[in-house]
């Protein structure tokens, strides 16, 4: 067991617990121009992750994430299953075998996740998806780490940027996902996935284990 693994476990557990806790809110976000099941899908899927949490292979952080990815694709349906599963899988692949994860490694893993999501969902920045919160947040994380911030501070920057970027999605017209069917009517409300990223990031930052 490494420190890296402990942090990874913390992040995954927090994402899972917060997804379950925010089921209703995430569902409401998705109901505005989507079909209202974003919260339900994440919550049901991450319940499985939590139920089996202790038995997940912990060889290293990368392996751990890859196993979580399989649990997600197996148990989360809808658009979120393949997207989030791909993201975890790519991040895990990027870190696999790495026993000494550095700040740039984390950034690289997150960028690998983004590439996976883009490829899987054929989405670009500005299409009003979770990418529009995730990508600027990763940029902020990178800048913060490069500036010498510690992990807790960097996580905080990530969260703050994710929140403002998620809120900014309300001005965008959806071009991917179910919300895109409503065309211009999607303008004026935030993207559920993007706001999901922000809420999860805030929880991660707020309860970051210090010491």
């Amino acid at each position: 067991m490494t420190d890296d693994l402990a942090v990874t476990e913390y992040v995954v557990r927090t994402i899972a617990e917060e997804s379950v806790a925010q089921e209703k809110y995430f569902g409401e976000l998705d109901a505005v121009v989507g079909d209202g099941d974003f919260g339900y899908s994440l919550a049901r899927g991450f319940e499985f992750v939590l139920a089996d949490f202790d038995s997940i292979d912990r060889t290293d952080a990368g392996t751990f994430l890859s196993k979580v990815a399989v649990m997600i694709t197996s148990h989360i349906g809808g658009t979120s299953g393949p997207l989030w599963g791909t993201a975890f899988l790519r991040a895990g692949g990027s870190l696999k075998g790495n026993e000494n994860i550095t700040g740039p490694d984390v950034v690289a893993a997150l960028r690998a996740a983004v590439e996976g999501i883009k490829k899987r969902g054929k989405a670009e920045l500005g299409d009003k998806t979770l990418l529009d919160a995730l990508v600027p947040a990763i940029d902020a994380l990178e800048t913060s780490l490069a500036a010498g911030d510690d992990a807790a501070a960097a996580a905080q920057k990530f969260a703050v940027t994710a929140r403002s970027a998620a809120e900014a999605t309300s001005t965008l017209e959806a071009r991917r996902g179910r919300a895109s069917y409503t065309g211009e009517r999607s303008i004026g409300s935030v993207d559920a996935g993007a706001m999901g990223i922000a809420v999860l990031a805030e929880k991660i930052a707020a309860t970051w284990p210090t010491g």
Partner: protein
Amino acid sequence: MKKFINDPKQFVPEMLEGIALANPDTLRYVPAYNLIHRADAPNHNKVTIIQGSGSGHEPAHVMTVGKGMLDGACPGDVFAAPPLDFITETVKLLASDKGVLLLVNNYTGDRMAFEMAEEVAEADGVNVKTLFIDDDVAVKDSTYTVGRRGVAGNFFVMKAVGAAAENGADLDELVRIGEKVNSVTRTMGIALTACTPPAKGEPLFDLGDDEIEIGVGIHGEPGRRREKWMPANDIADVLLDAIVPDLPFESGDRVAVMVNGLGGTPISELYLLYGIVHKKLEALGISVGRNYVGEYCTSLDMAGASLTLVKLDEEIETLLAAPAEIAIRVF
């Protein structure tokens, strides 16, 4: 929310169990993958046909499993594409030597899950092809968008490839037939009320007492625009004006017409609407070769209807007319 339900989380499994208990001779239920399949599948003399999609569209697709239609359906939860596992395990269990055809309504989640499943199945050595159905004219189709949705018109693709598979057609032939039927099928839907997903417990969107939503999808996604309620004659015009010029359907054409209820609209209203549409088509010189009035692809308890036209030729008409034995007999 007032439904016949115990626990929202058990809504889909308990419904599937009901289907299985009601059809003990013909169907099997595999709870782990929400899978309903023909008791005699896989049948190595025919291609296996599987359709996924979310739940909440019943009778599509779990109640259309049977001889002449699907070999299996493995829906996700309400309005959610099935997780990858459901599809890969279903394919494994039902794969025939003649191959597997996956029918997918064109939605992002479904596309992704089935594309991933196709990769997995191919890696396992299964001969599998995927066919995307996108009959909804309400959605603008361009490379810039996600493309049209698959809605009630999926019935005709299912029925045609189901009949052809029963006749021994090979996988490529089924893909040809399915693509052809899809290419001449057009649908447009209208919602009178929002639907209430069990897990949400309240209507998915607010629709005024005098408002209707035009061009709605089958997941309660808002449609093209909101308007004031209008008489059935005018609704028929709105639907036909969207559908007829799209293919286009023209004087002299022979079509199949489906008036599909979205779950909360009684059959009386659907037949009333059918009568109007029938006469308007006749006035356009378009003759109705086959008609389908009832519930084929619903949005839970949504009041509303969709209209589908299919341009018929001899091949399609013969396949549509072939017998089939499913839990719900709808043709």
